[in-house]
Every structure is written in structure tokens, then in C-alpha cells.
């Protein structure tokens, strides 16, 4: 039988177009980068049975199984069903694999499940976000990181959420040992000072990393009950204008960030270039086109940010513009 494959469908079904003729790679979606060992074993099985026996671990915490014959895509789709069930990824039809690939896997650092500095459960929020936005063919990248260390490198994404805590100070428990001051200065931004034997926090300077809380020996510093987020937007890699995401909001709350992402999808639907190649235009380039104010209008619609939240009035992105110049400095 002649080989007649719709490559557009193949890609949307989360298979990769391979340079090796007749072959593809299956892209397994793992929101938050956490998967059960049982599913990992299943991934290995698929790689052995249909692939070339290797597993490619991607930069966005998914895995790809290369060397799969195009003819085996259906068989692979039914074999990965248990993985899809296990990782809780939304699906349209059972045994048909993933219904989309445009909206990329949601990335997360280990966060508070593992990391002493994690300010919230990054895995849980990544999964919750994936549930909300997937499946979608729109090209959007979202990542969660537990604290300002940004181990998940969320500044490379369209939306990056950086965990924050608002340190709470009980002067009656403070013994002036100055460890919070020392470690805020060494490991963070140096927002603390000692005044009359008690610690004063420069609230404008404090980035909410929680280092002071981790080092205080007496529990004079504790974490706020609320979990907060720094929202950074429109970072990207790519040929034209790679750049880091810039700060949009600090001290945002969980409910608001989810609403903002939902709004962002509506904004993209409205403004995406109808003639874009393969219907794919990155949200960052749309913002470049419509302007920041229009983006804000859409994204902040009906969002009731908590009182503490501060929104940037302007956002300026840097990075190189290779479409303008390829010269070295």
C-alpha cells in the first residue's frame, strides 16, 4: 500500500515530523514533569516495542520516543493510553493519543514537594493549568517555578509564575542573631537590616524568596498563609527576537493567574494572524503587534487581583533583533 500520511494531523496528534523518511517520534506529555514509575516503565516498553529503544528527554519535561514507523502510530496511541490516564492529561477520544500539541507541556521545578525553597506546590499548579488549557492548537508556553531561583527557567516562557512568600515577623521571637540578614544578603537581595536589635524588612526591595524564613532559628520569621506569584511574560527563544520574559505583576494570587491565562487564550484567538504559517503565531509576536495596552485590556478582564498585587504600567523587552541586525557588538 502506498504511504499516504497527513503530516498536519500527525503533528497535531503529538507525533514529530522526522528527518528520517518513514519514521516519527511519539511525544509524551508530562505536566509538571512528574509521572508515576509505572508510566515510566510503559514509556520504556513503547520505546522497545515500536521505537528504536532510546528515549529522548526533552527540555520541557516531556519525553519523545524516536524511530517509530509511521504505520505504528495507531498501535502506539493505544499503548500510551495508560500513560495519558495516569498523567491526567485531557483527551478527546480514548486510544487516539493526544488531541493537540500546540500548547506546550506545562513545566514545573520540583517546588515545595521537594525543595526547601519552594514557595508552593508547583507540580499541582502545573497539572491544574494543563487541565485548563489543554488541548489547544495555540502555541503557548507556560511554566511554574517555586521561587526566585527560577530553576524551571520560566523567563524563557510566554507565562512564567515564580513563587513568593511574604515573610511574617514576630519581634518577640527575634534574638538578633542576624542570620536572616546575612543570608538575605548572601543568597538573595539584601532587604533586611537590624534597627534597635530588631529586623526591618525593606518591603520594596524584598522579592519574597523566603530565605530569611528558612534560616531563622527561632521561627521569628514565618511564611505568609497566602502563596503569591511574580508573573513574568513573553519570554522566548527563536530566530527573530529571542528575549527573556519581563515582570508583569508581583504578589499576584493563584485565582488571578489562572484567569489571566484563560483570558490570554481568548486574546490570541482574537488577534492571531489568520494567514500565519500553519496557523501558528507565538503569543509574544501578537503582543508586539497589538501593543501592550491591548494585551493588558484582554488579559486583566474581570481579574480581581488581591490587594497586595502590583501591576507594571509598561513592560519593555530586550533581547536581540536578528531581523534587524546580525552584527556582533
Amino acid at each position, binding site marked *: 500500500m502506498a504511504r499516504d500520511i497527513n503530516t498536519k494531523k500527525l503533528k497535531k496528534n503529538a507525533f514529530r515530523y522526522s528527518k528520517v523518511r518513514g519514521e516519527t517520534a511519539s511525544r509524551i506529555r508530562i505536566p509538571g514533569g512528574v509521572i508515576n514509575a509505572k508510566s515510566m516503565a510503559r514509556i520504556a516498553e513503547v520505546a522497545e516495542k515500536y521505537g528504536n529503544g532510546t528515549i529522548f528527554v526533552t527540555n520541557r519535561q516531556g519525553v519523545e520516543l524516536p524511530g517509530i514507523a509511521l504505520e505504528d502510530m495507531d498501535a502506539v496511541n493505544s499503548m500510551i493510553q495508560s500513560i495519558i490516564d495516569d498523567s491526567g492529561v485531557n483527551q478527546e477520544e480514548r486510544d487516539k493519543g493526544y488531541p493537540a500539541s500546540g500548547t506546550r507541556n506545562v513545566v514545573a521545578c520540583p517546588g515545595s514537594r521537594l525543595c526547601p525553597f519552594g514557595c508552593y506546590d508547583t507540580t499541582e499548579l502545573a497539572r491544574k493549568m494543563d487541565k485548563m488549557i489543554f488541548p489547544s492548537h495555540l502555541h503557548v508556553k507556560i511554566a511554574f517555578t517555586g521561587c526566585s531561583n527560577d530553576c524551571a527557567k520560566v523567563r524563557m516562557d510566554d507565562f512564567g509564575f515564580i513563587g513568593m512568600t511574604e515573610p511574617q515577623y514576630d519581634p518577640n521571637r527575634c*534574638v538578633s542573631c542576624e542570620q536572616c540578614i546575612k543570608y538575605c544578603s548572601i543568597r538573595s537581595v539584601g532587604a533586611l537590616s537590624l534597627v534597635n536589635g530588631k529586623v526591618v524588612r525593606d518591603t520594596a526591595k524584598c522579592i519574597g524568596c523566603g530565605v530569611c524564613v528558612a534560616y531563622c*532559628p527561632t521561627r*521569628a520569621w514565618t511564611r505568609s498563609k497566602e502563596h503569591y506569584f511574580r508573573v513574568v511574560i513573553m519570554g522566548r527563544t527563536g530566530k527573530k527576537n529571542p528575549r527573556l520574559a519581563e515582570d508583569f505583576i508581583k504578589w499576584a494570587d493563584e485565582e488571578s493567574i489562572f484567569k489571566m491565562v484563560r483570558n490570554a487564550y481568548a486574546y490570541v484567538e482574537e488577534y492571531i494572524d489568520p494567514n500565519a504559517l500553519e496557523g501558528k503565531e507565538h503569543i509574544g509576536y501578537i503582543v508586539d503587534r497589538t501593543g501592550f495596552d491591548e494585551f493588558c485590556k484582554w488579559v486583566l478582564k474581570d481579574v480581581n487581583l488581591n490587594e497586595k498585587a502590583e501591576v507594571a504600567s509598561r513592560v519593555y523587552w530586550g533581547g536581540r533583533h536578528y531581523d534587524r541586525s546580525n552584527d556582533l557588538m
Partner: protein
Amino acid sequence: MGYVLSRDSFTRVLKKIGQSRRIYAPVNKVGEGRFTDVDVVRYDFVTEAPEIELDKKSDYAFKEILTPLSQTLFFFTEDEVKEADMDEREVIIFLRSCDLHAVKRLDAIYLENKFVDPFYKRIRDKVRFALIGCGRSYEDCFCVSMGTNRADGGYLFSVDMIGGKYYFDVKDDELAAIFASEAESEQAVEARYVTENEVKVTIPGNVPVSVYKDPLWEEYTVRCINCGRCNFVCPTCTCFTMQDIFYTDNGRVGERRRVGASCMVDGYTNVAGGGQYRRTNGERMRFKVLHKIHDFRKRFGFDMCVGCGRCDMVCPEYISYANIINKVNDAVEGGAVNG
């Protein structure tokens, strides 16, 4: 007398007792631990039974009421000194057997160490105790080795929570009447105590000077980060430092504070001129350990450490003080064998 009470009736007892007294007990503080979504058990004032954490061992000790982490002793102006006010009510502290033994250590330091500390005494005079029975040994406890696993007296009543019911052995007659009025039943009750811990230590008899020079301490110069957490959670660490705070630039109005100090953190042994007696963390560890299990005993006749294990539980570097005791003992015994 022994009484069995429900949770609600225990709360009613606490309310009655609390009319003229304050009740200080271990409380599980949700999310107030070092890391996100981690609780910490530390002492606070309570009014109801469910607030008292009777299951977990407290991370911080009861001593914070007797020797506050930060306490204003008096205020001063140019020509006047005014002692800080204090609550005059009696306090009942809920604590476990090891901690009740720790009170004896605090008293030794603050009341029997040549001088009587008036600030300690004025609160100590108001304090009574309620014993929390130990239904099991916790991780890191070595109270049996230290002989502090059982309290014989020194408390008003004991409490054990078993299967949702509270069991009291009430030693105080006035309180017995209150318990009796709320009790579901009267029966013989004995506070539970443990007879074996997983962690065991052997306290060395006499520690020869050679042990001070033993290489065993060097490891801690590298491992310990001199955070002092082991001191701040310890029920028997008693060190403090004085602070004179001036509210105004002319420096004539202010207050004198006493704040907790730690022999492990930087600055503890600083003296005028920039000297520091114990520079390395290994030296500080040696001082701490030998003070707890040797030097104190030489003066008072019993060991300072009560084996509560909190210092092991809190150490971010997984340094086991209990293990150090055993290492010291090995060094002493080895030394003896080697002559």
C-alpha cells in the same frame, strides 16, 4: 485521683481552671514551620482542649515562658527606671517528662547558681505544671539513657489522650474537684511513660582533658553551620545576652532587653578588642556537648541534658548530638584502655 473526660469536658475544665490562670501548652502551628506547608509545634497560650498538641513532640521547648527569646526587663529615662509589667496570674505549663526534668536544670542555673535571677524568679514563682504522658518514644528521644523518662511528682495533674478520651491523674485537691465535676468516670490512672528509646547514649564518667584535644571535634568544624537551632529548641540551654536600646539620638531614653543567645552562633564568645574564644564550630560543639554532659554535672551533681532529642531533630546538617555523646564515651573508654 484518676478521671476520664471527653474532649468537650476537658475544655470545660480548662475554662474553669483558666478563670484565674493562664494555660501554656504545645500547639501545632499550621504552616509556620521552616518550609512551605510544614507545621511547627511550639508553645503558646491555649483555652480549649483541641488546641493542645498531645500527640506530636514539640519542636520548641516550654522554656520560652520562663526565659523568653526576647524580653524587655526595664525602661529607662534620664532619671527613672521602670520595670516592665508582667501578668500576675498563675501559669500551668503542659509538658512531657523530659521537660519537667529540664525545669530542675533551669532552676539550678537561674536560682541556685550563686545568685538568684529576679526576672526568672518572678515568673517561676507563678508556674505550675501538668504532665503530658508519653504513649511512645519519639524519633531522637533518649530520655531513658538520661533517666528523665519518668516524672515522680512535681505536677498538678497528668494527661494522656487515648482513643479520643483524656485520662487524668490529678494530684492537686482543688483541681480534683473541678475534674470530678466534669468526669465521665473515675478510675485509677497512671501517666504513661516510655521504658526504652531507639536512641541510647552512654554518658562518660570523668572526661579527661585529652578528650578536649581529640580529633573527633574537627568533623564538626566542617559540618556544622553554626545556626544555633540546637540551642534555641533545647529546654536546658539558658544563655542570654543583654541589649540596651536607645529610642532617641541623645541616647537617654530606652529599654534594656534580654535576648536568647546560642553558644554555636558567631559572636557568642566575642570579647572586647575583637577576640573570640571559640572560633571554629568544632570548638563550639565541644563546649556545648561537654557542658551538657560533664561540666554542668561537676557543679550541680546531675547532667544538664535531659535527652529530649530536639537538637537532633532540628539540625539542618543532620548532626546527631546523641551520637557525639557516644563518640565522647568511646574516646574516654578508648583513652582509658590505652592508658
